[in-house]
C-alpha cells in the first residue's frame, strides 16, 4: 500500500504543471523570501539562460554565510551487511559480494588513519540494522570516534528517539538520512524488501533525531530515482518543516547523483552535471544559510567548479568500501564508485588555488554538555 505524503511535504501546489517563464525565474532571483514556488522556477528549463547569473548569486550567498571556506569531512564505512533490497544500491542483500564489518580494533586503526590525514569530522556509515552491525555496534563505534573526532556523524538506519538520544550522549553530533526519493510510489517500487520499505518511518526519523538533541541532521535525495524537480521541491519542504519544528538543530543537504551506469541499475530519470549544478545554485538561493554537500562521487573538474558556488562542505580522499583507509586493496566493493580519487593534500591545494580555505574543524567537542548531549 503506497503511503500518503503528509501535508507539510506535499509539493503539488508548487508543481502545478504550469511552465515557468523567464519572468518567473527573475522574480525568483529577486525574491526576499524564496520558497517552493521560486525553487521550481529556478529548476525549470526557463532558468537555463540564467545559469551564470544563478552561479554568481550562489557564490555571493555562499561567501556571505560561509565565507571563503569549505568544510571538510571523511566517510568511514563500518559495515556493508544489509537486509534491504534497494534496487539502486551496491549493498543490496541480493548482491553477492564479500560482507564484513570492522571490528573495534580495526575501526580504531581506520579512525587513526583519518585523523592522521587531518580530518576532525567523520561520518560513520553502515547498511540497514542487522545482527552483525546493529545499534549496539554503532553506539560502540560512535563512542570510539568521539574520543578522537570533534564532530561525529552517522549515516545508518532510522532509529527511535531514545536510540538517537543514546548516540548523542555517546558523542554523536549529526545524523544523515536520505529519503532517497520522496515519491511514495517510486519509493515503494525501488525498495523491494527490508525495513527500508517503510517510507513514513524513514521520513520521520530526522525529526526524531532532532527531538533527541542531535546538533545536525543531513537530508538528501538520490538524483535519478524520480523526477528530480519533484524530489528537489520535496527536499526543500522537508528542510523547511524541520527548521520550523526543531529550531535549535541545524540541517545540511546533499544531492548524491546516480551516474548513468552504476552497477546494474540504470537511473530512470538521469540527471546530468548541468542539472545538478542548477539544483545546487537554486537551493543556495532559496536556502542561503544551509550547508550543501558534494561527495567524491562526482569527477574532479566538476567538484573544482562547484566548490564555493553553493557547495560549502566536501569530502576528499574517500574510501567507500568497508574501512579502506588502511588497506592497499579493498576487501569489499564500494557502495559507489569514487570519481575524485585525489588525496586530501591535492584536494586542499586545489581549493587554495581557487581562493578557498579548507576547514577541518568547525566545532569543539568541549562544548558538549558534560551530562551528555543537549536534550532539546
Amino acid at each position, binding site marked *: 500500500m503506497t503511503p500518503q505524503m503528509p501535508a507539510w511535504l506535499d509539493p503539488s501546489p508548487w508543481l502545478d504543471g504550469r511552465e515557468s517563464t523567464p519572468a518567473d525565474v527573475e522574480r525568483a532571483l529577486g525574491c526576499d523570501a524564496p520558497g517552493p514556488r521560486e525553487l521550481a522556477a529556478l529548476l525549470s528549463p526557463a532558468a537555463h539562460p540564467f545559469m551564470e547569473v544563478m552561479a554568481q548569486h550562489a557564490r555571493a550567498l555562499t561567501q556571505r554565510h560561509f565565507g571563503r571556506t569549505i568544510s571538510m569531512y571523511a566517510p568511514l564505512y563500518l559495515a556493508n551487511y544489509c537486509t534491504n533490497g534497494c534496487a539502486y544500491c551496491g549493498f543490496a542483500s541480493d548482491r553477492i559480494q564479500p560482507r564484513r564489518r570492522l571490528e573495534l580494533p580495526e575501526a580504531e586503526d581506520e579512525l587513526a588513519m583519518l585523523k592522521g590525514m587531518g580530518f576532525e569530522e567523520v561520518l560513520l556509515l553502515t547498511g540497514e540494522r542487522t545482527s552483525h552491525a546493529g545499534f549496539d555496534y554503532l553506539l560502540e563505534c560512535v563512542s570510539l570516534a568521539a574520543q578522537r573526532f570533534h564532530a561525529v556523524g552517522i549515516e545508518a538506519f532510522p532509529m527511535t528517539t531514545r536510540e538517537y538520544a543514546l548516540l548523542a550522549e555517546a558523542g554523536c553530533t549529526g545524523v544523515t538520512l536520505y529519503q532517497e526519493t520522496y515519491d511514495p510510489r517510486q519509493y515503494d517500487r525501488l525498495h523491494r524488501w527490508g525495513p527500508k520499505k517503510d517510507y513514513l518511518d524513514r521520513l520521520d526519523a530526522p525529526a526524531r533525531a532532532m527531538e533527541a538533541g542531535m546538533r545536525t541532521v543531513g537530508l538528501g535525495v538520490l538524483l535519478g530515482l524520480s523526477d528530480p524537480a519533484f524530489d528537489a521541491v520535496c527536499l526543500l519542504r522537508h528542510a523547511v518543516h524541520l527548521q520550523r519544528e526543531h529550531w535549535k538543530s541545524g540541517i545540511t543537504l546533499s544531492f548524491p547523483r546516480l551516474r548513468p551506469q552504476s552497477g546494474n541499475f540504470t537511473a530512470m530519470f538521469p540527471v546530468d552535471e548541468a542539472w545538478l549544478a542548477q539544483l545546487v545554485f537554486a537551493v543556495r538561493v532559496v536556502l542561503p544559510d544551509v550547508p550543501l554537500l558534494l561527495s567524491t562521487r562526482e569527477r574532479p573538474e566538476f567538484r573544482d*567548479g562547484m566548490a564555493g558556488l553553493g557547495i560549502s562542505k566536501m569530502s576528499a580522499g574517500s574510501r567507500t568500501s568497508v574501512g579502506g583507509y588502511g588497506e592497499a586493496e579493498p576487501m569489499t566493493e564500494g557502495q559507489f564508485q569514487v570519481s575524485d580519487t585525489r588525496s586530501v593534500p591535492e584536494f586542499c591545494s586545489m581549493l587554495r588555488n581557487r581562493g578557498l580555505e579548507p576547514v577541518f574543524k568547525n566545532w569543539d567537542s568541549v562544548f558538549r554538555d558534560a551530562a551528555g548531549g543537549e536534550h532539546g
Partner: protein
Amino acid sequence: MERQDKAQDAWVVGGHRFSSRLLMGTGKFQDAETMVRAVLASGAQIVTVALRRVGRIPREDDMLGPLGELKGITLMPNTSGARNASEAIRAARLGRELCGSPFVKVEIHPNPHHLMPDPIETFEAARILAAEGFVVMPYMPADPVLAKRLEDVGCASLMPLGSAIGSGRGLATVEMLRLILRDARIPVIVDAGLRSPSEAAAALEMGCDAVLVNSAVAAAGDPVAMAAAFAQAVKAGRDAHRAGLMPQGGGTALATSPLTAFLSEEGQ
C-alpha cells in the same frame, strides 16, 4: 496549524478566524466617541483595551461601554501596567473575567520611558497563561529566537515591535521581522511604532499576517480618517503580497570569466 485560510484570505489565531488584518488599540484618544468611530472606520475585529482600578466615585468617561456593544469585535485586554509576570498573569485573569474572551495581549514593560517589552517576564507570563487556556498574544522584542521560544510554550501569535511604542519609527526591526516570519508557525502581528499607513502596507507586503496600530490613529489630525486610511493600506499590502512583487533591480554584472565555464566541458 495553518496560519492562513486560503479560501477567503482569512487568518486564524487561537482557533478563531478573522478577515481584518488591522488590529486597533483604544488608548490615547481624546474621547470615547472619536475612539469608537475610529475603530469602526478601521474595520478592526480585534481591539485592545486596558485594565484600571475603578475609582470609588467613578468620574472618568466610560470609554468602553459603546465598544462592548459593537458586533463582530473581540476585545483583547492587554496587561499594560504590569511590570513582571505575576502582575501580568493577574491582570490577564481579571481581563478574562471582564471581557469574557480568552484573548490576552501580554504586555510587560518595566521601564516607563521607552516602554520596551521585558522578554524574560513576557516568556514566563506567556507560558503560564497559555497553560491556563488563554489565547496568548505576546508583545515582544523582534527577536527570532524569543519568537520560537514563545511558540514552543503555546502562544497563539507573535507581536514583535516595529519600533518603540509611540515613537513612530516604523519598521525599524524589518530584518529581524524577516527572520521571525521565515520560521514562524503562528501568525506574526507587527505591533508598536508604526506611524503611517505605508508602513502598515510594508509590513503586510513582507508577509506579516496583521498589524496593530494605536498612537498613529489616536494622535493623527483626523483619527477617524486615519483609521480608514490604515484599513486601506493593510488591504493593499496584503493584496500586493499575494500578487507577488516584481524582482528588485540591481542584478549582478557578468564576470569576465564565467563561473559556469566548467559545465560545458565534457562530463556526464
